[in-house]
């Protein structure tokens, strides 16, 4: 029987109240959202917070909306919300690709986007998707709010830039002008339905004619720094979106990631997955971008 250690519990009904509670109890406090990462960790006694600050009653943090040139996702949006939001799929197919393979439908009902990000598991899927989309995170603290690039959010496995008296409140994804020439995709290989990835890749491609004007490639579970395949991105920028180029980008991504052998598979196999999945998501993203352009013209 897995039982968390003794813990105090506070319920916050506003961001201000949550921040006041975090400030009062830091560094012994942890934000409790869906709890589907934190509670298992507490049951295994891998973390033992002194105080839980439950933010589930801050209903104003649960939203997914296009605002100006951004898609904004409230930190308390559930995974099921993101999968069900047409506005998310309309702009970024990668998000729906990823959500379909995150955990299982019942876990997605309750687990939150912000919670997954702040847990910062090195195999987490949305961290790679948001890195590919070059999003940013809004973090509130005692001194106000700050915006941090998705590519600077994680400082290591299970570690983020969010301080003990701070909380993540929103994820922002830029919607570029002429978005109809962009496409995105996510693919994951796992041992069984609902499992963490052995390896996964996401790509967002922006096309100028048939040339790749910009690209984001996110990798998870394979030791990619900040979940990004930076060298492959650099190689692709300004090159034609043809098959040999995309295949070469997959090879570059595989060369530069640093997977570890573990119970999910040997490092060589994971490297092979990175090469294949990176090429496939680039191919799909390019095809989707062209299809969207075809629809627009």
């Amino acid at each position: 029987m897995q039982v968390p250690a003794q813990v105090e519990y506070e319920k916050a009904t506003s961001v201000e109240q949550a921040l006041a509670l975090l400030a009062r109890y830091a560094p012994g406090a942890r934000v409790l959202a869906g709890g589907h990462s934190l509670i298992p960790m507490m049951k295994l006694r891998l973390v033992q917070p002194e105080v839980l600050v439950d933010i589930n009653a801050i209903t104003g943090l649960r939203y997914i909306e296009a605002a100006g040139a951004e898609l904004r996702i409230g930190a308390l949006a559930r995974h099921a919300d993101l999968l069900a939001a047409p506005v998310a799929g309309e702009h970024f197919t990668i998000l729906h690709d990823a959500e379909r393979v995150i955990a299982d439908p019942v876990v997605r009902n309750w687990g939150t986007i912000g919670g997954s990000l702040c847990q910062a598991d090195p195999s987490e899927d949305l961290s790679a998707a948001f890195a590919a989309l070059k999003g940013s995170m809004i973090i509130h603290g005692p001194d106000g709010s700050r915006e941090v690039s998705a590519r600077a959010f994680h400082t290591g496995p299970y570690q983020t830039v969010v301080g003990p008296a701070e909380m993540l409140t929103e994820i922002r994804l830029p919607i570029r002008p002429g978005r109809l020439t962009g496409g995105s995709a996510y693919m994951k290989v796992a041992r069984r339905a609902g499992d963490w990835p052995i390896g996964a890749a996401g790509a967002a491609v922006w096309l100028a004619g048939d040339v790749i004007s910009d690209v984001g490639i996110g990798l998870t579970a394979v030791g990619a720094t900040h979940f990004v395949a930076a060298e492959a991105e650099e190689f692709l920028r300004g090159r034609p979106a043809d098959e040999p180029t995309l295949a070469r980008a997959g090879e570059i991504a595989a060369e530069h990631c640093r997977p570890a052998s573990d119970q999910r598979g040997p490092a060589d196999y994971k490297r092979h997955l990175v090469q294949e999945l990176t090429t496939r998501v680039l191919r799909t993203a390019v095809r989707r971008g062209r299809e969207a352009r075809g629809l627009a013209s």
Partner: protein
Amino acid sequence: MKISVTVNGTDHQRDVEPRLLLIHFLRDELRLTGAHWGCDTSNCGACVVWLDETPVKSCTVLAVMADGHRVTTIEGLARGGVLDPVQDAFAACHGLQCGFCTPGMIMTARWLLDHNPDPSAAEIREAISGQVCRCTGYENIVRSVLRAAGHDGNDGGASG
């Protein structure tokens, strides 16, 4: 901590430790043993109940998180002594063998049919993909849900 939870339409007040999991609150405090305590790791789904209108794995929710909310368990599905059509269908189609996974399967299936009254076999399989039947009786579980949706329960076979 004092909490107030409406379970199957009945208000319950209890003083609980914040670390108490919802599944243990239901089973040990309220003696509602329909929801089963299975893997304890949010993998098997035997503990699925509804928190307000949403199926959740109650081994991974604290009882204090249900304070001020409604919980529905398998005991709350029948109305006036009449079983829910999903319960009837599980009985008719042999949707249960040992019965351990059944309460969670039925709670998720009821929710699926409330949101998608005519699901395909593939959609049913997706809906219960976070729940494990250790008898491996999935074929009959899918048939049961199809029958509850108004099909004859024979079109969810191996090809489904």
